[in-house]
């Protein structure tokens, strides 16, 4: 196949990738995006495979089949496990980039030092360092999200942590510079693995101090790294399709990370080096505050007499598997002509947009899923705000308490509704480990119990004969 045809095919694939992302701007056209993406990928694979320098086909077939064998089950994980799957896939992306970079280095080294130009060496080092640190970093993130036993959930910190991490990365880059200046020296093939090992180690150490609450941001940042590793591979292989596709991925990860940071009022550096979730156990002692609790019957009655009910879901809802019961409650209220809306905080789930997917799976129309900025102006008109498994995202301390670790974080104004019902399993603090003032407000009534049971009981009350 001639060079021109290959380049034309890659150009078409690039355009299709851009359309794939463009069509994601509304759920109505989003599935076209998937088809465009699949078409682009198929074109790219077929054209590349048909190149004359590809002479061995056995391993390619085996690797592709193995990819299907592992990939298909990975696409069927429960939606609560999507963050882990995403992190795992960043790990695979990083691994692929790191390995191809390594292969290319040793290939060019064996073919003759004139191949190892400064430009190629810089690109290879960037590719390998980014690829391997993304690999182990994403594995760690996936492990934390999956709650694997031997990976600590809480941030792990030690003295001089940031300094020693940066020193490690600095050493890797220094070795890279050395290698770039003497790519064909006798010792060069020995230094290359050192860079790999340092990058692998750096990936682990980068994630260890980061707590569970920051995982959405971390996943987005790793997404960006995986994309940039692909870009670097494009520079190594002189392949513009890789550069464009990697750049699209890189910018996507970057934008999502910025959105997540804004939603938590944090900066990048604070997420990466701040060890959030470590020191919030300081309880605001002093006066003993009392929860007011409400019965299911009373709760159902108030709900039934409302005009506007806003449900504020948090990850606790998904942990309790309560989505489908929430849907039944939504149905019961809708049947009575009550307006029901969902208030979705950007960090309500464990990755960007996670809560929307969980609710869509429960068959709740996306037109009733509103993001924070859309719903907050309506909150004072809400008769009831029903908080299901959410905690920090409705904590008014974010607005008022300068000493709170979440101070400044934008929240859903659940406390402005006329009545607040908060379903809570226990009196423990939330994911980020912070006490919540909302629960002690005059308007708030607690419904203690497992979210699934409590919502189920509410549904039973509403559908029971006495309530019509």
């Amino acid at each position, binding site marked *: 196949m001639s060079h021109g045809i290959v380049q034309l095919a890659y150009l078409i*694939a690039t355009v299709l*990738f*851009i359309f794939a992302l463009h069509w994601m*701007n*509304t759920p109505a056209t989003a599935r076209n995006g*998937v088809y465009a993406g699949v078409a682009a*990928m198929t074109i*790219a*694979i077929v054209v*590349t495979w048909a190149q004359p*320098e*590809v*002479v061995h*086909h056995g*391993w*390619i077939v085996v*690797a*592709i089949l193995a*990819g*299907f064998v*592992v*990939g298909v089950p*990975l*696409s069927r994980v429960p939606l609560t496990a999507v963050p882990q799957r*995403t992190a795992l*896939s*960043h790990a*695979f*992306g990083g691994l692929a980039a790191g390995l*191809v970079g390594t*292969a*290319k280095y040793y*290939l060019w080294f064996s073919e003759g030092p004139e191949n190892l130009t400064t*430009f190629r060496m810089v690109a290879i080092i960037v590719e390998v360092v980014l690829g391997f640190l993304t690999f182990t970093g994403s594995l760690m993130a996936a492990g934390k999200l999956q709650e694997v036993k031997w990976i600590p959930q809480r941030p792990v910190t030690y003295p001089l942590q940031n300094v020693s991490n940066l020193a490690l990365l600095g050493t890797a880059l220094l070795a890279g510079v050395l290698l770039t200046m003497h790519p064909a020296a006798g010792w060069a093939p020995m230094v290359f693995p050192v860079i790999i090992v340092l990058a692998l180690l750096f990936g682990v150490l980068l994630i260890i101090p980061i707590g569970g609450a920051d995982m959405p941001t971390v996943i987005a940042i790793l997404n960006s790294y995986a994309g940039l590793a*692909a*870009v670097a*591979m494009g*520079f190594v292989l002189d*392949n*513009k399709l*890789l550069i*464009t596709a*990697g*750049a*699209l*991925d890189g*910018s*996507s*990860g*970057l934008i*999502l990370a910025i959105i997540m940071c804004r939603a938590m009022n944090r900066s990048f550096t604070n997420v990466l080096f701040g060890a959030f979730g470590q020191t919030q156990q300081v309880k605001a002692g002093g006066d003993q505050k009392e929860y007011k609790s409400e019965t299911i019957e009373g709760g159902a009655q108030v709900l039934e007499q409302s005009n506007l009910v806003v449900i504020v879901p948090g990850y606790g809802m998904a942990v309790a598997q309560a989505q489908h019961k929430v849907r039944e409650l939504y*149905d019961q209220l809708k049947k009575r002509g009550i307006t029901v809306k969902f208030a979705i905080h950007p960090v309500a789930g464990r*990755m*960007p*947009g996670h809560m*929307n*997917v969980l609710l*869509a799976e429960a*068959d709740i129309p*996306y037109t009733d899923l509103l993001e924070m900025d859309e719903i907050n102006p309506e909150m004072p008109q809400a008769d009831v705000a029903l908080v299901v498994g959410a905690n920090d995202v409705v904590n008014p301390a974010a607005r008022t308490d300068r000493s709170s670790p979440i101070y400044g974080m934008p929240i859903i104004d659940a406390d402005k509704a006329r009545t607040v019902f908060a379903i809570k399993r226990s009196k423990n603090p939330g994911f980020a480990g912070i006490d919540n003032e909302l629960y002690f407000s005059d308007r708030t009534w607690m419904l203690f119990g497992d979210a699934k049971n409590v919502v189920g009981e509410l549904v039973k009350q509403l559908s029971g004969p006495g309530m019509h």
Partner: protein
Amino acid sequence: MTQTLDFWSMMFVFVLASFIGVGVIRRVSRLLHTPLMSITNAISAIAVVGSIIVTGADYPEGIRILGAIALFASMTNIVSGFLITDRMLKMFKSERKPADRK
């Protein structure tokens, strides 16, 4: 000389593609950020192109093994990325099915 020309043309492609990426991604519905992430996973697995060459060309076996592992990793991302994106997108409905009403 050609090498530096290559570098600069690649740099242009990278910078322009990043701007297109930012422009397009900013308009993606916030509802769909999770599917967005899984589809970009699949798209960045375009590294498959490099892996195929390394695996299939007439290179020493050790190098081709690295390529084959990379090819497997990329292919896993392509398959699982596109399938799970489609699976999630199918769940987003603007209205209830008639059967669900009353």
